[in-house]
């Protein structure tokens, strides 16, 4: 291999097309049952807390109090929003990679695709930073933005798998923005905020 490493080359290596409907992430138990050896394997699971109730114009995180792995974290937007032209939402979720890792695929919510709008979703860990998943979901094409009705709507659901190590982590937003449907470049909507209260997740 030669030394040049500055120019990316991109070859599509796999494209799969399927209905999203069946793509519900299966919930699995965190541990196995006891065997015949006489000792008991403890059941490992996530516990999650710190979620705040949805409020208008606020995007926040929600999670089940206890969960096997993977754990599904839901991003919700409180309504009714002031803005009626929300076109896209982006954010990073930051967490400790020693406790959990992002697990694709992300599952689209019911907010940005309402009315049958086409959407694009990209969610992937930042290169070299497994504790940061960079997420964006946006309407796609020359369509108007939309509004979240009260009390709330689901933006997206993200799965996190346990690494197997026990421990705790915060799950927080960074680099977060919601944008409108301005052309050619959607503009940040200052009235849409992202909660500063982190989720507290532990695996034990």
């Amino acid at each position, binding site marked *: 291999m030669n030394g040049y490493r500055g*120019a990316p080359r991109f070859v599509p290596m796999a494209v799969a097309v399927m209905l999203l409907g069946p793509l519900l992430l299966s919930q699995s138990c965190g541990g196995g049952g006891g065997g015949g050896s006489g000792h008991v394997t403890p059941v490992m699971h996530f516990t999650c807390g710190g979620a705040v109730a949805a409020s208008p114009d606020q995007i926040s995180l929600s999670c089940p109090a206890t969960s096997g792995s993977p754990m599904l974290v839901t991003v919700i937007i409180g309504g009714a929003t002031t803005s009626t032209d929300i076109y896209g939402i982006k954010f990073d979720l930051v967490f400790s990679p020693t406790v959990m890792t992002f697990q694709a695929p992300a599952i689209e919510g019911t907010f940005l695709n309402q009315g049958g709008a086409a959407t694009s979703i990209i969610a992937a860990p930042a*290169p070299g930073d497994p504790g940061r998943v960079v997420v964006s979901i946006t309407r796609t094409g020359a369509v108007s933005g939309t509004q979240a009705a009260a009390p709330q709507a689901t933006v997206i659901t993200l799965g996190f798998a346990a690494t197997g190590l026990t421990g705790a982590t915060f799950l927080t937003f960074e680099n977060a923005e919601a944008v409108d449907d301005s052309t050619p470049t959607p503009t940040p909507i200052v009235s849409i905020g992202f909660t500063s209260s982190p989720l507290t997740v532990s695996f034990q």
Partner: protein
Amino acid sequence: MRRVSGAGLLVVLALAGPGVLLVAVNFAQDSAGHAGTKRPPVLRARFAPAASVPRSSLSSLVPVPPTFAGKLEPLRRGESRSPALAAPEQTGAESTLVPEASPPMASPPSVKAGTDIFLADGSETALAIDVSNANILAGALNQGYLNTPSLLNSSNGNVSWVPNVFPSGAGTITGQTFDPWGSPGNSPGDLFTSLIRRDSIAASKVTHMILAHSGDSGVSWSRLFEVNKALVQDRDMFDVDRTATRGGGTGAAHDGKLYLTYDGFSTATQEAYVASYLQVVSPTGAALTEVTTSLPPGSGFNGTQMQPVAGTLDGQVYLMSVAAAKTDASVTYLLFHEVTGAGTGFTALKSGLVFPAAGQQLATSGRWGLNGHRIDTGGQMDIDRSSGPRRGNLYVLSSRNLHSADPTQDQGDIWLSISTDGAVTWNEAMIPGLAAGKTQFFAMLDVDDDGWIHVAYYQNETGLTDNGVLNASTANLYYTVSSDGGLTWSPHTRVNGSGDTLLYFDPPRDLSAHDYYLIGDYDQVRAGRAGGIKVAYVLWSGYYKYRTDIFQDHGDYAICTKMTPALDSDGDGLFDPQDNCPTIYNPGQEDFNNNGIGDICECLLTRANVDNTGSSLNRIDGSDLFPLARAFGSCSGDAAYNASTDLSPQGCVDGYDLAILASLWAESVPVTCP
């Protein structure tokens, strides 16, 4: 630089309605594998307008010699051999022709090294490949003076061939065959071949063109049509009117009709030209319209040896004919005509091309050739029937001699002529990448369903005199392909294995008594898809001077070789081995720092960082996705089009741009590019 791992990357493109498309994209390949590797040069053709042929010059044109000369006269099966063709030679060249160290070979092995597959004795070859499965092949041959089988089929992509018997004509039209042609029909399993058969009555000069059809992928054949004119019929070819789904025109009135062409010569004096004809035949074999396309000089001569190419309109056929200048046999004219309404309209002499043909006159015969044999002075024509931007373009391949006055120099090059206006005007260029100083000839052409242009040709390699430019000891066969209408070409690849290098007598034998025995007037390359993979087959004529076939006369034999064309992954016309950014469309190959890495690749991160402010500063994220999404589905000229988001600059913001952005997701942007 770290690459995005495919395992954790997700792009969901959700379309309207309840169905949601999930597009998982993995663009994990690193560039390092390409960096610093020696890349073949880009082979760009330099087109220039072709000189128009003044109509005044057409009155001085004469027919080129018929192809049957040198085929019909000498031998029939069971007849005695001509001394001049017997081996070893009796001519003045024999001292150099006494067998050398290599022992005579009775017959080439049935499976050659590599993918060369020996089919049979013979020097003229035609090939048809199935429309839905390019592993299904039918080959028609002139088997020297052997009468059968003349027809073979392969169901496994040239791994093995099964001999068939080409159908006879009615009555006594059961004699030997020559002048093969082949084409698929419009449906899977539907194949056609044609040959001309001699009358088996010894005193008869009559020959008939016979069209054979197979509806079962070449397993069984029957005669669909026979041209019954009492002539010496010569140089038959045909084409099939395509359905719209196969690239033909809208409307189905003429779908499936067959356009047969042939020349007619007097049975009394074989080389007395009578006329050329287009016979339209129904899909079921009924004679429909006949058009007299050419008459002798002075009475409506439009050339001979007319190749029909079904056009992109229903019932449209282009015809390319050949003629020679009366006063200078070195000058070849290709003349173009158009038939409409499946024969109801005929426009002769729409345009012409003129050039000196490859090779030289063979002694004082007036025949033209190389390596002691006559060669075809005409060319091959095809049309782009794809749905792409070059649909309707006509392509003509010819072999030309730029040194016709100096036989010590290169005696042949392959030229491509292109017409974008239905054979009214032409631009032309030499195919780039031909070996300099060597003679190329017998150019073969096929334009596949995607509009790719496949070319194969022979090349003299070595010789005792002038490096064999005129008379060679050895020759090889080469293949190249263009995916952008002939502007750029793949590296030329040798077709034949080293064991199948053509070995000629050098100096050549004196074949004047046999009209210099024409070989190579029918050789074909045909391309298609097998299992989704693009493939091309070259059915060609080998030559091995030590070999004696069953008639102990000629060293020629038919070989089929399968080629896998180079990939053009990004569709920019540059094949991957030559492309400085093989997976992103960059036909201009811009490279600002001349490091061999195209700007489109090297600077893609910079370009993809459409929004370089705020939280997206020096990073690819949602702020870069939003404007792309906003422009998604738009093309240049649309109000919504945003060129900065057209990351693969094909003029539209589409899934490919989205996939590129996804492949760079969350990358930092360290490189400064223009």
